[in-house]
C-alpha cells in the first residue's frame, strides 16, 4: 500500500489486475464446467432437438476442435434408442452404479449384510444413494425419467457445474474425483458391443448401430477429457 496518490493508483491497478486475473480464472472454470455439463447432457434423450444440444456443447467448448461433431439423425436415433436405453441389446448407459459394486459388500446394517452387496450391473447402488442424498441437501428434484438413475452423467455433470458456478470448488472436485472414475469401464462396454456387432450379419441397422457405438465412444472420450480438464483447473 502506497501513501502517495500515484502509489495508491498503482496499488489499485495491481489489485484490479489480480482481480481481473482471478475473475478471468473463475470465468474460465465456469466455462469449463458449463462445457462438461453440456457433454453430460448429450448422454440423454433429446429426440428431434438433438442438434441444439451439440451446438450448446460447441458454444461452451474452449477449443472447438475437441467438441463432438453433430451426428446425422439416424445415428443419433440409434444411440438414443439402442445404446442409451436400459435393457436395449447394445445398452451402454452411463450410470455409475452399473460399473461399480452395488454396495460395500461387507457393510452390515442391523446385523445383516446386503443381499447383493458386491454384485455389479445393478442400479441404485451406493453411488446413486450418495447422489440422492446430495440432491436432497440441495433441494434439487430428480426428473421422473432419471428416478432410477440419480448417478447418471447428465445429472452428475450438472451438479458439478452448479457447484462451480456457486464457487464451491472443493465440492466440485470431490464429485469429479469420486463419481467419474469409471469412465474407462464405460468406454470398454461400448467397445465390447461394437466387437459383438462385427460378427452380426450386415444390414442398415447394424451399420447405423456401429456408427452410433463409435459416436458413443467419441462422447465418452470427450466427457473424460472434460472431467480431467476441469479437475486440473479447479486444483
Amino acid at each position, binding site marked *: 500500500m502506497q501513501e502517495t496518490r500515484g502509489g495508491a493508483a498503482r496499488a489499485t491497478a495491481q489489485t484490479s489486475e489480480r482481480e481481473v486475473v482471478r475473475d478471468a480464472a473463475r470465468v474460465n472454470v465456469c466455462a469449463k464446467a458449463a462445457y462438461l455439463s453440456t457433454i453430460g447432457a448429450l448422454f440423454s434423450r433429446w429426440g428431434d432437438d438433438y442438434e441444439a444440444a451439440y451446438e450448446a456443447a460447441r458454444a461452451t467448448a474452449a477449443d472447438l476442435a475437441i467438441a463432438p461433431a453433430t451426428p446425422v439423425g439416424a445415428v443419433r436415433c440409434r444411440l438414443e434408442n439402442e445404446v442409451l436405453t436400459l435393457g436395449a441389446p447394445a445398452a451402454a448407459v452411463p450410470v455409475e452404479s452399473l460399473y461399480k*459394486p452395488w*454396495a*460395500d*459388500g*461387507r*457393510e*452390515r446394517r442391523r*446385523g*445383516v*449384510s*446386503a*443381499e*447383493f*452387496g*458386491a*454384485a*455389479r450391473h445393478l442400479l441404485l447402488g451406493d453411488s446413486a444413494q450418495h447422489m440422492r442424498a446430495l440432491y436432497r441437501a440441495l433441494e434439487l428434484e430428480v426428473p421422473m425419467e432419471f428416478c432410477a438413475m440419480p448417478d447418471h452423467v447428465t445429472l452428475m455433470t450438472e451438479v458439478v457445474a452448479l457447484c462451480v458456478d456457486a464457487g464451491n470448488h472443493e465440492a466440485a472436485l470431490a464429485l469429479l474425483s469420486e463419481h467419474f472414475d469409471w469412465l474407462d469401464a464405460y468406454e470398454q462396454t461400448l467397445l465390447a458391443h461394437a466387437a459383438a456387432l462385427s460378427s452380426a450379419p450386415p444390414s442398415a441397422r447394424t451399420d447405423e448401430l456401429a456408427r452410433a457405438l463409435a459416436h458413443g465412444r467419441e462422447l465418452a472420450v470427450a466427457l473424460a477429457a472434460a472431467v480431467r480438464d476441469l479437475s486440473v483447473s479447479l486444483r
Partner: protein
Amino acid sequence: MARYGMLINTKKCVGCYACRVACQMVNGLESDEAFIKFDEMEQGAYPNVYAEVVPVQCMHCEDAPCEAVCPTHATYTTDSGVVLVDEERCIGCKYCMAACPYGARIQIKKTGVIEKCRFCWYEGEPGNPPRCVGTCISGARLFGDLDDPQSEICQEIARTNAQPLAGDLTTAKIYYVR
C-alpha cells in the same frame, strides 16, 4: 468357550448351489468369487453308480496350515476355533493358498486379500447359524459347538460317525456324512 464346527451330510445334498449363492450375498463376494466349491463325484460304473456332490470350504482346522505359513500373522484363530483373516495385515502373498490342502482360499478382486469361509463371523461371533446352514433346503448342514455333547451337531456326528473329509490330514472341524 465354544469350539465351533460344521457337519455336512452329502447324502442329503442335491447340489442346488443355494449355499454358494447365499454365502456370496452375505460375504459381499462377486458372482465369480465363492467360498464354497463343489466336487461332483461318481463312483462305480453304469448302472451301479453312486453320485454325490461334496461341498468344500474352509475346514477351520485346529492346526491350520494357512495360519502357520502366514508371514504377517494375518490369518489367526479365535478362541472359539474360527479361523479368520485380518484384512489390514494381509499382503496378498498367497502362501496360505498354497498351504491349504483343501484349496479353500481365494483372492478377493476388490481388495487383493486372501479370504475364505469365516463361518459368517461378524461383530464378534459366528453366524447364528452361518448362512449356508440357514439356507440349505434339505437340511444337509449343521453348525454348533463341538464341545457341547448335547448340541445337535455333536449328537449327529456321533450317530452317523461323521468324519472329516481327508482323515487326519489336518484337524479339520467340518465333519462329513457320506
